[in-house]
């Protein structure tokens, strides 16, 4: 999942994956395997998070996306959405939350954000997305 603090331009491959996630959810919100929480202020959506159980695992969940409206950033909404999703995962007997992100400078804030929420870097795959753009995998054990 990539919370994009600075709205970096997506690569074509990222666009394709994002569209797949969103399209799948919109076609069948209940059975898509994607769960969505929205954050609302006075009934207006100010952010959302998309997550879901990792196929073929027991209690492992992927955190796919979290986006906060530009004008609402820095107000703790992203953190609240992350904690809300973690709580929902706990209720579903989930035990691990997994985040994948990029090593590029555009995602430094994202990485710090997740580390601040208690996620730990558990894997680093060099040149995964493209030469020089590594995949960083973070994990949080949900108690």
């Amino acid at each position, binding site marked *: 999942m990539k919370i994009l603090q600075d*709205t970096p331009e997506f690569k074509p491959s990222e666009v394709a994956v994002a569209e797949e996630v969103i399209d799948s959810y919109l076609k069948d919100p209940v059975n898509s395997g994607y769960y969505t929480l929205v954050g609302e202020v006075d009934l207006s959506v100010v952010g959302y998070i998309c997550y879901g159980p990792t196929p073929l695992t027991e209690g492992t969940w992927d955190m796919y996306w979290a986006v906060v409206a*530009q004008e609402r950033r820095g107000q703790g909404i992203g953190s609240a959405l992350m904690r809300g999703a973690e709580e929902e995962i706990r209720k579903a007997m989930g035990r691990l939350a997994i985040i994948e992100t990029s090593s590029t400078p555009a995602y430094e804030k994202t990485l710090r954000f997740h580390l601040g929420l208690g996620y730990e870097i558990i894997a680093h795959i060099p040149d995964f997305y493209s030469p020089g753009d590594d995949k960083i995998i973070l994990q949080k054990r949900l108690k």
Partner: protein
Amino acid sequence: MFRIRRVYDDITPANQEAIAEIQDILRAQFPRLLKRTVAKLPDQLIG
């Protein structure tokens, strides 16, 4: 007042509106992402 809620489906007007607002946020922040996806949204909601 800030609150968080789960969107379970796209059946109720409130959820339809929430999904549309999500799309607005995405459109504003990721214009390339939604060139195709936003256009599909009404059909998918009706379906």
